[in-house]
């Protein structure tokens, strides 16, 4: 059992666990949607921004607590549930990424995120900082524009067979495929 928890989880168990997360929140009378937290934080920090002036952020505090939990969960996974393995992606992906200048995940210091983007040295270079800033900006802008992210649309929305969520997920992939296949060769 402990061995199972310690190693990377198989896809079916991971999917089951995401589903369990969603239904736990549903039975608490809430909705599984992580990016609402970005709106809540904006409403708290900038109450005069018209888009967020009507957000009663006190009603959303539960989701910020969920966010803090996710932060702690990441820490616990790294500190106590770590078998030291790096992400075992497909050999074809490793070769493709090598052509763009990304080293094998096994050589990455975290084992899960590439140092080429997420080491302090690269993140604080001009180009590296710009890339992380643009990525974050697009995630924040896009997720509010689309009214949800992977949890709100791809999981909650598709589970409820919502057509707008299907359109949003098609958008997620349109953007993701353009970035990966058309823009990555120009950027890296």
């Amino acid at each position, binding site marked *: 059992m402990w061995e199972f928890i310690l190693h990377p989880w198989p896809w079916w168990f991971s999917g089951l666990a*995401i589903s369990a997360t969603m239904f736990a929140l549903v039975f*608490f009378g809430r909705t599984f949607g992580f990016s609402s937290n970005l709106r809540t934080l904006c409403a708290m920090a900038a109450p005069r921004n018209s888009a967020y002036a009507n957000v009663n952020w006190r009603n959303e505090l539960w989701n910020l607590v969920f966010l803090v939990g996710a932060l702690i969960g990441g820490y616990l996974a790294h500190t106590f549930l770590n078998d030291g393995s790096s992400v075992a992606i497909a050999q074809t992906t490793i070769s493709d990424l090598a052509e763009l200048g990304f080293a094998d995940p096994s050589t990455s210091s975290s084992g899960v995120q590439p140092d080429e983007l997420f080491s302090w040295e690269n993140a604080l270079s001009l180009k590296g900082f710009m890339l992380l800033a643009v990525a974050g900006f697009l*995630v924040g802008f896009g997720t509010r524009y689309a009214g949800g992210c992977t*949890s709100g649309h791809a*999981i909650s929305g598709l589970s409820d067979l919502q057509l707008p969520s299907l359109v949003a997920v098609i958008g997620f992939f349109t953007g993701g495929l353009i*970035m990966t296949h058309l823009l990555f060769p120009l950027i890296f």
Partner: protein
Amino acid sequence: MRFLKYLLVGIFFGILMAKSEAFSWYRIQEMFRFQAFHMYGIIGTAVVLGAIGVFAIKKLGLRDIHGEPIVFCPKDRGFARYFIGGSLFGLGWALGGACPGPIVVTIGYGVLPMIIVFAFALVGTYVYGLVRNRLPH
């Protein structure tokens, strides 16, 4: 104390994002290159189980822990906001390799430069609020 349950579910979510490797930039690249089943298996399993569960909740008229009927709010109608907003999100998702949940989990995991991505996600959210009346929805 009423918030404790959200903290616990959040911790579970954080562990699950890390142990499933769904928070990894490498896994997102593998997904967008269609080179492994892993991410599709995760999302597919969650959606299939989710759809069965939502159907059952509606069919049986189940209630939440406060005794209130569970209702699922339909999303607002529209196309442009979902497709354009979704595409912009997708560009950022592939570049940074993380959507909002995994961004936070990655920071907890100790990859601290991801804080830059989180900070600019807040900037993006704020700017959307400034310009949204001029955007097609």
